[in-house]
């Protein structure tokens, strides 16, 4: 039945609707810069028409629900690409530090020390019994040994720096999983009333995206709106409102492993199962790249020490002694000049026969010749050449990682733009909506005023 009260009713509903719409618009405007916010729309539907004498009559509109404008598939894509971005970013940053260790652009690195080591032996060959020449051989050898030590400890520091980053990230991951679990609970409770929990969902999506950047995760949303998150080899991080933590532990090689703890408190080592995110990037640099570079450095040291020792022990010192090694130790960490030689320079074996002492310089020449000997890389490279290609290798790795990072960054930026275009708040649009709803509000208010006057007129008729 349609009457004036109905008009009031319609106007009242309209007023409420526009008020709600302005509220939603206000919310959008306030959250224009909130990260992860998806704009919300008020969904208004026409009310069920009433039966009137002349057929169905519209009964105004109802605000049905508030919807967030959101592309679910895009969200999944963004998470996946953010995971890769995290990995490249972590690798890029870690490798930049390592590149500094091999930075030879200033000419103060291993390349110079190695070259001066060889020329010192040539100087010795020009005056095998000379005290100054022996002092210089010892000094240049000490510089070489110190350079090896320094590079080793720098690589160690890089490795430890990565471990510190991993520990920090683990804490962040644990915070995020706790947040996701809490939000799961809130969303489930809110949506049990039948309405979408827009703001909580936005927050949870943001948390999942940040989590993806850290470590590779799989997510699954169940019927009641809760998301379960699993990592690496299927270990659950979040299920319902419960979350499981990750932790780290020092292993035998002095680096940290990532552990997952189940409900009973048992730990599972998931380090080798991690396949994305910053964690993967860090682990890759620490366990593959640093190990590779250190391995090559150690190869260089070991072969160099071996070859020199072999020649040196067949030679004779100024005091006639023979059979002495020049270097002790065989890795970049432990190589040293034999302490007997450090204390007595006469033991440096420049001569090749005992009767040739002191003028015979054949052994010094043999050792100096090692500079050009192809001892490395399956007998195809000199010591200097081997190090040069190691430096190039580091440079290339950094270059390709930087390029991959830039590419991935652009990719994520494009996806973000797309997300913005769907879910982002456009202030101009909201301004327009504001004007639109305000006019509608004014009109609805006018409608009420009109209905009120009509009532007055009727009452005055009596």
């Amino acid at each position, binding site marked *: 039945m349609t009457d004036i009260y109905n008009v009031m009713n319609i106007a009242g509903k309209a007023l409420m609707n526009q008020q709600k719409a302005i509220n939603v618009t206000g919310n959008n405007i306030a959250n224009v810069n909130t990260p992860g916010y998806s704009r919300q729309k008020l969904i208004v539907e026409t009310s069920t028409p009433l039966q009137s004498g002349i057929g169905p009559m519209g009964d105004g509109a109802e605000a049905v629900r508030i919807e967030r404008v959101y592309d679910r598939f895009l969200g999944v894509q963004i998470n996946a690409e953010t995971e890769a971005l995290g990995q490249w970013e972590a690798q890029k940053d870690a490798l930049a530090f390592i590149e500094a260790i091999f930075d030879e652009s200033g000419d103060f690195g291993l390349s110079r020390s190695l070259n001066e080591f060889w020329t010192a032996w040539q100087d010795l060959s020009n005056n095998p019994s000379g005290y100054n020449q022996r002092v210089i051989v010892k000094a240049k050898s000490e510089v070489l040994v110190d350079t090896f030590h320094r590079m080793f400890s720098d690589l160690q520091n890089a490795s430890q720096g990565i471990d510190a980053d991993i520990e920090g990230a683990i804490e962040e991951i644990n915070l995020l999983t706790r947040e996701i679990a809490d939000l799961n609970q809130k969303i489930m409770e809110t949506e049990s009333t039948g309405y979408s929990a827009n703001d909580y969902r936005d927050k949870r999506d943001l948390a999942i995206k940040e989590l993806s950047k850290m470590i590779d995760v799989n997510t699954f949303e169940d019927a009641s709106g809760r998301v379960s998150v699993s990592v690496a080899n299927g270990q659950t991080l979040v299920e319902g409102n419960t979350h499981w933590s990750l932790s780290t532990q020092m292993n035998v090689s002095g680096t940290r492993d990532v552990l997952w703890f189940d409900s009973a408190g048992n730990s599972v080592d998931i380090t080798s199962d991690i396949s994305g995110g910053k964690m993967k990037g860090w682990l890759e640099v620490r366990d593959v790249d640093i190990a590779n570079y250190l391995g090559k450095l150690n190869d260089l040291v070991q072969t160099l020490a071996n070859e020199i020792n072999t020649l040196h022990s067949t030679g004779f010192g100024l005091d006639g002694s023979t059979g002495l090694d020049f270097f002790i130790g065989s890795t970049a960490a432990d190589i040293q000049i034999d302490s007997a030689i450090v204390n007595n320079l006469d033991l440096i074996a420049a001569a090749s026969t005992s*009767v040739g002492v002191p003028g015979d310089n054949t052994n010094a020449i043999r050792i100096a010749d090692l500079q050009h000997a192809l001892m490395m890389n399956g007998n195809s490279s000199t010591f*200097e050449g081997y190090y040069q290609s190691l430096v190039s290798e580091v440079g*290339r790795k950094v270059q390709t990682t930087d390029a991959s990072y830039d590419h991935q960054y652009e990719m994520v930026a494009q996806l973000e733009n797309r997300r913005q275009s769907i879910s982002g708040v456009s202030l101009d649009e909201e301004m327009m909506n504001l004007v639109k709803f305000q006019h509608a509000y004014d009109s609805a208010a006018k409608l009420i005023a009109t209905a009120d006057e009509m009532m007055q007129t009727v009452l005055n008729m009596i």
Partner: protein
Amino acid sequence: MRVTTNTMTDTLVRYLAMQNSQLFKLQQNISSQKRINKPSDDPVGMGKILNYRNNIATVDQYLDNIEQAKSRIEFSEMTLDMVDETLDVIRAISKTEATGTTTSRNIAADQVKDLYNQVVDLANSKFGQNFMFSGYQTDTPAYSHTVEISGGTADTINFGLSADSSNVTLKIQDNNGNVLRTLAPADIGPGSDGINNVVWDGRDDGGNLLADGLYIFTVEAFNASNDPVADYAVYNGDDGSVTYILGEGTRLSLDADGRNIFSPENPDGTPAGINIFEVLADLIYALENDDTSAIADQTKLLDRAHTQISEIRAANSPRMYQLETTEEFWSNYKPKLQELLAKTEEVDLNEAVMQLKNIELAYQTTLATAARIIQPSLLNFLK
């Protein structure tokens, strides 16, 4: 596509950041004058740079070695020149004394003795800290009356005599001239014309074993008529040579065996040329004994000695030539390496500054555009 405010601002920020980083890179290049400031700037180029630097440093070392080799040859040449001049003086004296009266011969003998000592000193010349003509035994004088004790055993005492003598006394001294042991003729036995070897147990007069080291000895010998017999020094070195590294795989060996100059020997030890010291000692003996025919003989031998030395000096000439051509080669090679290094490593300033200007322009344009786009919004126009 729906473009929101955030899309525009985010994109602008990204591009500004990109241009900033390009500007930063150029700034680094220009300030350091290098195109390659880290290995990742150009990995292959970095490897080449290290290679060039190493090569340049190695070439410097070769040039250094060549300098030293040249110095040695020059010094050797100078020394032998003085030896030759001294021998010339002796030859002149000897020619004069081959004939004539006897009164001047003793004076001549003393003169030749002094000149003999000069020649011995020249034979014992040092190059730096090392004796030049002793082969590998660079810490031992080439020709001198010295004997070494090592490991508690004394070497054989070697010396030469210009005539037979059954009255030879040896006095072994330390560096300060203190006589530590006197070996009497009875201990030594008869000495013969030429090289003599005497075994010594290394003990002093009191029977104590002396410490390891080098000792000096003097020889006093008299003939049957109790006239002095001149003695001469024997070679104490070995046949070692001095080798210099002139380049990768290129070596130059300079002979350092003094015998080849002063007392050539066959491999079996028999004399193979003129023993200059023996000739001088024989000359002294002949002068002291007025033996004119012997004097004349020694004069002829001195002529041949002059030839012997000249041949040695001539042999140095091709070696010097080799050193100079090698030096020239490296001196020409080095600037080429330096040029390659510069080309690979250094930044072309003109190009870099041009690029800087371009990017600056782009940057400023982006900033200006940003200002125009992100400022106005609908709010400015709503009343």
